[in-house]
């Protein structure tokens, strides 16, 4: 292939431009992995909370770890070592194995026990109470618990600290062996680890998962212990890896297949290499546009975007197939341009509507695709022809293509078949047993069932909160929130007693309201009174009167303490639990806008109706996260369907503008419209509920259909031109079909949805374009 000087210069400039774009993209592009980018922006407080919950809520950050394989005592030791190792790691905020002892309470919190324990609400710390307590302690001392209580008694004769620790325990206590959590059979030691990163932050989650894998390896090697863990974070890492792995494998296979196909079709390496330039430019332009406009690009945008702009490979194919024996490639390109431009413009306009769908991920996708397709179209028109070798095979001369075209001419055009297809599709939509739309978010990235079962089982052993139901309390500040929670506590206890739930958790279990603390503080006796009361109380007990100095000191200290706040607790091990249950929103300066959201989590929900009655009766919101997420998805779908409707109108508008004549417009649009209907019908008949990704695929298929139809329509009466067009369309549809049927093989629903939908679309569009759009043979008249 010989290139003129100006062509060489153009190639050089083009490559420099691509290099520049690559540099820009590398500098700018940040790939995000937060799936919430693909959810609509929340409109209600519940939806906002839901999105926070899905991505970073208490349940989503927790990994459940189990150790098994050796004797319980060794497992308990391994559990303790694991806590030490993980606790010091930056990937985990909190790792617990249930080991809580009197000396696990930070020293500065010790004196707060009198403000945290409910004892003083019921009775004063007087002689009578002290006397009964000391008698109890004497019995404790004579019991097997005596040895470990003994050192505490001078400081805490009423065992207030134990009461506080008991309050802080989860309501549904897991089984314990050797002081650490075990399952009911005592075969597996259980731990909870809370990651620092949110569940949908796979990059950070991966670090945590890798560390756990390393610990698992160490335990297996050194101690023969099998470590298994489970949690939303692990699943998101796993699914991301699988998606990436499959996408890479399928992408590689598709690329190889594409190259082979192009080599077979055009027999020239130079042409194949050149034809990759518009696609490469499209990809880089898309990336640059998204990173300039949005900053971070979602991983799904990238994966999808590249699949969608893969269509741009069709543009150089048209050019290559229309190589002319007597005309230069530049002339050929000029001739093709109206048709090509109509296809590119209408597809781009269809995608532009996604910019206004209210879903950031879709807006990114639209931006990426529009920029990519426009660049591919323009480079195919203006740059590629200059570089193309003017010599080459003219497919207009191909005898077999001529025969194929003639064969096609003779094909019947049964109108009734179209009517039947429409009727069948509508029937499938109406009568298919499954819901037309998939509203379950988790179905998009399904975790293998056995892993979910294992996860559920471990969580129920540990009594971790149910993810589905939450009480949401919004208050102006933390104190009000705590007050509301305190007021709810008695009815909540009744729910537990009635068996509607097996436990609950809220922030006021850890930090009492300032009001309550102040009341308790006021009830603490003066030093002299306390001394006198203790002296009197000790008299007929076996205790010596002079051993309680540390007790006097602590009570006096508690009388003067500044009340405990959530902030103070934040840095202690308990801080994590409290923080998850109580969130402050709004900025620090604007007090008016600030609000506090408090959650009540439940474990072992048995009676949802009772929960609903309780919530309605106490005027708080019961958030059913499953319901809320389904509503969210439904809202999103309505928005996207509106976008699609607008897209369809715009697309038809562009085609009408370009083609002018109603009969031409009908011939071009009919196959596309019918195909869309057919795809939906076939998917419904096959029992597939449609998702967001099917919708994106539908647009892609429609874009392809439009291109096919436009080019069939474009093929004039000139038999040479007809053959060239047929060649181009055969190569285009074969390559697209190959790529998407590979995707349809994927085990991942997202990729499968895309592959399946587009594959059906390619076949249907091609066949229908052939039947409906192809110029009618002259014999029958036009």
């Amino acid at each position, binding site marked *: 292939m010989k290139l003129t000087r100006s062509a060489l210069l153009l190639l050089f400039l083009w490559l420099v431009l691509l290099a520049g774009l690559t540099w820009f993209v590398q500098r700018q592009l940040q790939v995000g992995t937060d799936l919430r980018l693909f959810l609509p922006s929340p409109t209600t407080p519940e939806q906002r909370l839901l999105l926070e919950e899905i991505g970073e809520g208490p349940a989503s950050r927790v990994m459940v770890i189990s150790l098994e394989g050796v004797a*319980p*005592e060794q497992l308990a030791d391994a559990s303790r070592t694991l806590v030490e190792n993980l606790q010091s790691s930056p990937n985990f905020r909190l790792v617990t194995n249930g080991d809580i*002892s009197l000396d696990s309470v930070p020293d500065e919190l010790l004196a707060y026990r009198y403000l945290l324990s409910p004892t003083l609400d019921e009775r004063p710390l007087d002689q009578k109470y002290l006397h009964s307590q000391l008698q*109890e302690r*004497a*019995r404790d*001392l*004579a*019991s*097997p*618990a*005596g*040895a*470990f209580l*003994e*050192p505490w*008694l*001078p400081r805490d004769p009423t065992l207030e600290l134990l009461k506080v620790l008991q309050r802080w325990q989860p309501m549904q206590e897991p089984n*314990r*062996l*050797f*002081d650490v959590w075990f399952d009911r059979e*005592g075969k597996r030691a259980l731990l909870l680890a809370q990651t620092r990163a949110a569940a949908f932050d796979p990059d950070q989650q991966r670090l945590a998962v890798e560390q756990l894998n390393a610990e698992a390896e160490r335990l297996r090697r050194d101690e023969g212990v099998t470590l298994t863990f489970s949690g939303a974070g692990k699943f998101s890492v796993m699914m991301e890896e699988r998606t990436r792995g499959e996408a890479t494998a399928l992408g590689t296979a598709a690329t190889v297949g594409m190259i082979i196909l192009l080599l077979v079709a055009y027999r020239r390496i130079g042409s194949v290499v050149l034809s990759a330039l518009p696609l490469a430019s499209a990809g880089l332009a898309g990336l640059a546009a998204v990173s300039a406009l949005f900053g971070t690009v979602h991983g799904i945008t990238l994966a999808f975007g590249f699949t969608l702009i893969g269509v741009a490979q069709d543009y150089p194919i048209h050019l290559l197939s229309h190589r002319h024996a007597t005309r230069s490639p530049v002339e050929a390109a000029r001739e093709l341009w109206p048709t090509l431009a109509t296809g590119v413009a209408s597809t781009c306009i269809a995608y532009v509507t996604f910019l206004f769908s209210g879903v950031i991920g879709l807006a990114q996708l639209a931006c990426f695709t529009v920029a990519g397709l426009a660049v591919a179209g323009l480079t195919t028109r203006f740059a590629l022809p200059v570089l193309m070798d003017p010599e080459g095979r003219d497919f207009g001369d191909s005898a077999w293509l001529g025969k194929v075209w003639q064969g096609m001419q003779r094909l019947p055009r049964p109108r009734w078949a179209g009517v039947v297809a429409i009727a069948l599709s509508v029937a499938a939509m109406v009568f298919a047993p499954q819901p037309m739309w998939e509203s379950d978010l988790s179905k998009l990235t399904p975790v293998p069932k056995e892993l979910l079962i294992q996860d559920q089982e471990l969580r129920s052993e540990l009594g971790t909160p149910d993810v589905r139901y939450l009480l949401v309390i919004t208050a102006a500040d933390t104190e009000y929130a705590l007050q509301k929670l305190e007021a709810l506590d008695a009815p909540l206890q009744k729910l537990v007693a009635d068996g509607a739930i097996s436990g609950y958790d809220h922030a006021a279990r850890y930090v009492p309201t300032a009001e309550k603390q102040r009341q308790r503080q006021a009830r603490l006796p003066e030093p002299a009174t306390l001394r006198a009361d203790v002296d009197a109380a000790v008299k007929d007990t*076996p*205790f*010596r009167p002079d*051993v309680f100095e540390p007790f006097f000191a602590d009570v006096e200290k508690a009388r003067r303490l500044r009340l405990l706040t959530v902030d103070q607790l934040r840095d202690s091990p308990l801080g994590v639990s409290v923080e998850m249950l109580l969130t402050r929103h709004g900025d620090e300066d604007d007090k008016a806008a600030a609000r506090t959201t408090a959650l009540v989590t439940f474990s072992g929900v048995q009676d949802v109706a009772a929960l609903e009655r309780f919530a309605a009766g106490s005027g708080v919101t019961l958030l059913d996260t499953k319901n809320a997420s389904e509503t969210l998805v439904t809202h999103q779908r309505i928005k996207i369907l509106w976008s699609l409707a607008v897209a369809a109108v715009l697309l038809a508008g562009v085609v009408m503008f370009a083609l002018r004549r109603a009969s031409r417009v009908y011939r071009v649009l009919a196959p596309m419209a019918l195909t869309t209907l057919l795809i939906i019908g076939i998917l419904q008949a096959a029992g597939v509920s449609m998702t967001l990704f099917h919708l994106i695929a539908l647009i892609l298929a429609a874009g392809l259909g439009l291109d096919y139809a436009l080019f069939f329509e474009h093929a004039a009466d000139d038999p040479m031109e007809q053959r060239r067009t047929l060649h181009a369309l055969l190569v285009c549809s074969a390559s697209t079909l190959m790529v998407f049927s590979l995707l349809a093989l994927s085990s991942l629903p997202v990729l499968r949805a895309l592959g399946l939908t587009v594959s059906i679309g390619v076949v249907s569009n091609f066949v229908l374009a052939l039947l409906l759009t192809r110029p009618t043979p002259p014999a029958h008249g036009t």
Partner: protein
Amino acid sequence: MLALLGALIAPLTAGSAALNDQEADALIGRLAKPAPATISFTEVRFSKLLRAPLIVSGDLGYSGPESLDRRVTAPYREQTSIRGESVKVEREGDKPRSFALKHAPELRGLLSGFSAMLAGDPVALRKAFNVEMAGNDDGWTLKLTPTDTKARRRLQQIEVNGRHSEPRCFSMTTADGASSVLLLGAASAEPVAPDVTLIALQRRCGSGQGS
């Protein structure tokens, strides 16, 4: 709780010669009793927090190496069950209290000493304790020191006094000096004075070896 300072303070019965390991093993072997076994006890607990020792009595039920029940019948009712690693204390009119055996090394010492002796298994006993034995068949003393240094930080030693194949006293001393003496079987039948001293008790246990 069940520890016995006496073992530290009280000298071993004069004249009783130290037994060699073989003789000790033979003696331990003779202590074997088939499970389940029940024996009455009186426990006297000394503490520096107390003016007078705490005295409770009841019976101990042993039904296997990991299962011990301690029933207090006087002066109040209380039941402690050790099952594996968990200890549950129930007292009438009170909420049951559970804790892990790990928190009570004294109890673990008692349990493993008790188990090994009732099984007549010197090997098991030597695994958990350094065993020293003195006296003769009519009056012997087993001095058990935990082999594990971590356990020794809490439980200093256990001393068992007995005659023939009957253990009579189980005295435990914790590292911080608290102690308790468990009078077993016939030895528990005799009343204990409310202001009994450790030395007096020690003598009573030792007096069993008499001659």
